[in-house]
């Protein structure tokens, strides 16, 4: 039973990873050809800025989901990081200290998740729903209802700006660097091998000398750290620190990761697919908006894609099975 299943699962997975990249490329080409102003360099900049938070948070999220866990608190971590940034700025702290502090805060928040999940052994879905509420609540406690603006223009301009006179947005550097870092860790280091091993079977990984608890703990720290960074970037991009920044982003991130072919049960996934998933969602949204299709359509498209990303390969397999 399982032998049959697994045989097809391997190929199905590989197929989907290629398919999602192909679909993304096709969508980009079609959009550039048919949607006015989609292909402009300026729009490229907007597109990159729009997907920035999802893109970077999806990277550690991929690793977390590959180990079979989940982190729903990322958007709240982003919000708390943003709120603390605003608070400290109001306290007249130098931005040069605030930013590292916010990153540190993100890491600590991640460590709290990691503690609950790995040390206490609680289910990550429940834990991170709890911290989702807790961190968002703390963000409101820190900053209340106010919004902090007027961050230093040199910083805000960098986030919204482009490299020199090229049309390449500065933040693309961050995305690319992080993508390479996480991609290499996941696919070309012993840590990455351990991540897949833990996701495939925690017990068997332990029998091979991997320490699943420690690994997951650090992945949660990484997830928190990157979410903290996303909070900083969000704040600088909108030049507005608010407690509700990024609310609801967690589901979009999870959707992008799953769309990228990562199995919610762990053990399977590849970063290129996830990046394609992020780009696909972002560019669809952008193109639909430019063609005056309402936001609603995107909701429907996202949901359908998400289900289709798992259902499609399943059905194809079943059809193949019938033919045989």
């Amino acid at each position, binding site marked *: 039973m399982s032998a049959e299943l697994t045989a097809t699962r391997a190929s199905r997975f590989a197929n989907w990873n290629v398919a999602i990249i192909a679909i993304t490329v096709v969508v980009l080409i079609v959009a550039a050809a048919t949607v006015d102003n989609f292909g402009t360099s300026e729009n490229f900049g907007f597109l990159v800025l729009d997907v920035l938070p999802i893109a970077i948070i999806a990277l550690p999220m991929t690793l977390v989901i590959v180990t079979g866990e989940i982190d729903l608190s990322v958007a709240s971590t982003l919000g708390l990081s943003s709120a603390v940034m605003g608070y400290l700025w109001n306290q007249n702290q130098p931005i040069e200290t605030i930013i590292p502090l916010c990153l540190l805060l993100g890491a600590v928040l991640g460590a709290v998740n990691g503690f609950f999940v790995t040390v206490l052994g609680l289910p990550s879905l429940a834990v991170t729903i709890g911290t989702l509420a807790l961190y968002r609540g703390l963000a409101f406690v820190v900053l209340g209802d106010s919004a902090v603006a007027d961050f230093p223009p040199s910083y805000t301009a960098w986030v919204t700006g482009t490299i020199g006179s090229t049309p390449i947005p500065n933040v693309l550097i961050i995305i690319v660097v992080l993508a390479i870092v996480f991609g290499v860790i996941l696919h070309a280091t012993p840590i990455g091998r351990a991540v897949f091993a833990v996701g495939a079977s925690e017990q068997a990984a332990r*029998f*091979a*000398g991997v320490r699943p608890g420690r690994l997951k703990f650090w992945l949660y720290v990484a997830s928190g750290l990157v979410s903290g960074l996303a909070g900083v970037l969000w704040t600088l991009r909108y030049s507005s620190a608010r407690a509700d920044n990024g609310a609801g982003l967690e589901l979009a991130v999870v959707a992008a990761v799953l769309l990228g072919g990562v199995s919610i049960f762990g053990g399977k996934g590849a970063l290129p697919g996830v990046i394609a998933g992020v780009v696909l969602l972002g560019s669809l949204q952008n193109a639909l908006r430019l063609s005056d299709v309402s936001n609603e359509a995107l909701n429907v498209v996202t949901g359908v894609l998400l289900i289709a990303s798992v259902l499609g390969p399943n059905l194809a397999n079943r059809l193949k099975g019938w033919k045989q």
Partner: protein
Amino acid sequence: MADSSPVLRVRAVSKSFGAVAAVREVSFDLYGGEAHALVGENGAGKSTIVKMLAGVHRPDAGTIELAGTPVDLSSPADAKAAGIAVIYQEPTLFPDLSVAENIGMGRQPLGRFKTIDRAAMVRQAGQLFTRLGVSIDPNRPARGLSIADQQLVEIAKALSADARVVVMDEPTAALTGVEVERLFAVARSLRDDGAALMFISHRFEEITALCERVTIMRDGRLVSTDLLTDITVDEMVRKMVGRDLGALFPKQDVTPGATALSVAGISRDPVFADISFDVRAGEIVALAGLVGSGRSEVVQSIFGVDPRDAGTVQVGGKTLKPGTPKQAMAAGVALVPEDRRQQGLLMELSIERNVTLPRSRALSQLGFLTGGRERRSAKEWTDRLKTKYGRLSDEVGTLSGGNQQKVVLAKWLATNPKVLIVDEPTRGIDVGTKAEVHRLMSSLAADGVAVLMVSSELPEVLGMADRVLVMREGRLVAELSRAESTEESVMFAATGQEATL
């Protein structure tokens, strides 16, 4: 006693899993009022037959007839409805539900408005336990029951079904002699009430004690069906194995070297206590005992995947910290665990990843893995063990059981261990592979590796070991030299009573 017409007829059924032909054209009949044994080596296809009778698997070919009419058992519900009760090899309880509910599931006594009559349900469970002569609280949850108790609940479940056909897949594997006797008493009364029993066991004394007829399988095929009065145990074994047993254990003689592994007074409450022994380089030491005697826990604790409360473990003179497999691995210990599917392999990952996982750090260059070295190393070791596979990137779950076991062995032999611990190294693998594994262990020992082998198969223990350590209820009760160890002496030590064989 036995009716003249069979209650259930299995007619030329076959079942394949991918490339593995688990059952090939097997036919036999079960008669009411008769206990029918099904024997065969590990992987012969016995459980597959059981699962076809239970509606879990559908035969690829062949039919199953109940009271003369062919039936299509396409789901466990169908089998249940047809009056077939099954005790599976692995207990299948609902850990969150109470024992009484586990027994009553789907057949709960109903009260007013078709609500479940809990009191009656608990009473029924209690009555069943009384009949089996065990004291399990019907109200407690199934979670936390010992394997033996779980098996007893399974038996109670099958009893409660009042079935025409009762199929028991190794129900006694986890039971002690007294409980086996009780089970047999109940089984006999079922039989005398006219039910057809099918009984699977690796213990011939049980088969001769309970059954009237025996069907022997080998490599998925039917060898013969005989009346037990017409066949001796020796004949059964020969038919099962298909060759002389001696060839299976190619033990080479070696002179043991220095002490490689030294275990002193390790304990873990409540599983084992005060275990001390040494294994020297070049030696094969077997750890024998009944299932559940705590052998696996001991070796897992030595390797560090399980904690321990007290005691020290030294490898090559170096003391290992408890609870750190990594350190044990660094010191040259390798553990081939007993449960291949759960502990030994990552079924959904590729062969290559599985083989190289414990060495991913060693194979990396500057901390990076590009895949080439892993692939080469994986290829080298799988080839060395003559593993049959399509591509190295195939999921390991697609391999046959024997080849999976080879992958586990390759995974650990590649770490170049000084101390090799193998827990049930030949469980679920076919005859040919078994011999290969034994040859391999033998030659490793000859090369100076210290081998500690946990095995429930007596012939394997007797055939391979230089020394036999016997455990009973978590304690080391005997140490027998190769000369001293016989089936009788080992069984005596393991059970604490005269062996009935």
